[in-house]
């Protein structure tokens, strides 16, 4: 099971600039669904790539679902050459995205995010409207039910 607290501690402790999207952001907004991984959009600056690589290095990041033994190293060069990575780590599954479907890179998403405390850590997750936007942009059939719930959350918030 993904240890969300320790993953966030690793990222925040490593001063990584990131915004949480996906299921954890949905839960933070009030979704009743459960999610098994953490999805983040990270800032694509050289400094932040180095911080991201260093923060995850102790936790054995590896390509999720790939056969063992591949010559894969989640280092600065790998991150620079790639963009989005679906990783397994010793702390659980982590999707590390340079850009979310819908055009959301860090610079686009940060102004559309909220800073809140999770596990005593100051983290940012996308605001509800942006989360709905990203889910709609992704256009996956499995997201339709989630979008319905997120839009219902928005309605309930507006009622209160």
């Amino acid at each position, binding site marked *: *099971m993904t240890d*969300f607290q320790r993953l966030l501690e690793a990222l925040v402790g490593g001063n990584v600039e990131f915004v949480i999207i996906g299921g*954890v952001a949905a*839960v*933070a*907004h*009030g*979704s*009743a669904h*459960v*999610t*098994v991984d953490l999805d983040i959009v990270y800032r*694509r*600056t050289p400094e932040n790539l180095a911080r991201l690589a260093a923060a995850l290095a102790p936790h054995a990041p590896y390509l999720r679902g790939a056969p063992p033994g591949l010559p894969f190293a989640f280092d600065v060069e790998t991150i620079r050459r790639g963009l989005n990575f679906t990783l397994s780590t010793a702390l659980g599954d982590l999707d590390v995205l*340079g*850009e979310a479907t*819908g*055009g*959301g*890179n860090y*610079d*686009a998403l940060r*102004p*559309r995010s909220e800073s*809140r*405390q*999770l*596990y*005593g850590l100051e983290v940012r*997750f996308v605001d509800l409207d*942006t989360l*709905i*936007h*990203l889910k*709609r*942009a992704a256009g996956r059939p499995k997201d*339709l*039910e989630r*979008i*319905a*719930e997120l*839009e*219902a*959350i928005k309605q*309930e*918030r507006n009622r*209160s």
Partner: protein
Amino acid sequence: MNEGRELEWVSLDPDPVIEAYKRDVDRTLIRENLKLTPDERLRKMVSVLRFLEEVRGSKATK
């Protein structure tokens, strides 16, 4: 590196499929969750995940 700050345009018009799903959303759960802080919501979700893991584990050992 992409410096874009704009999101791609996407229609936010009501979608009949989403509207159909919306009728089945359990709003009592949402209202309960909205009384909690984001931190409490995440901790609650993790406790549900732990419970599900325990149930799976107990089934596997039978």
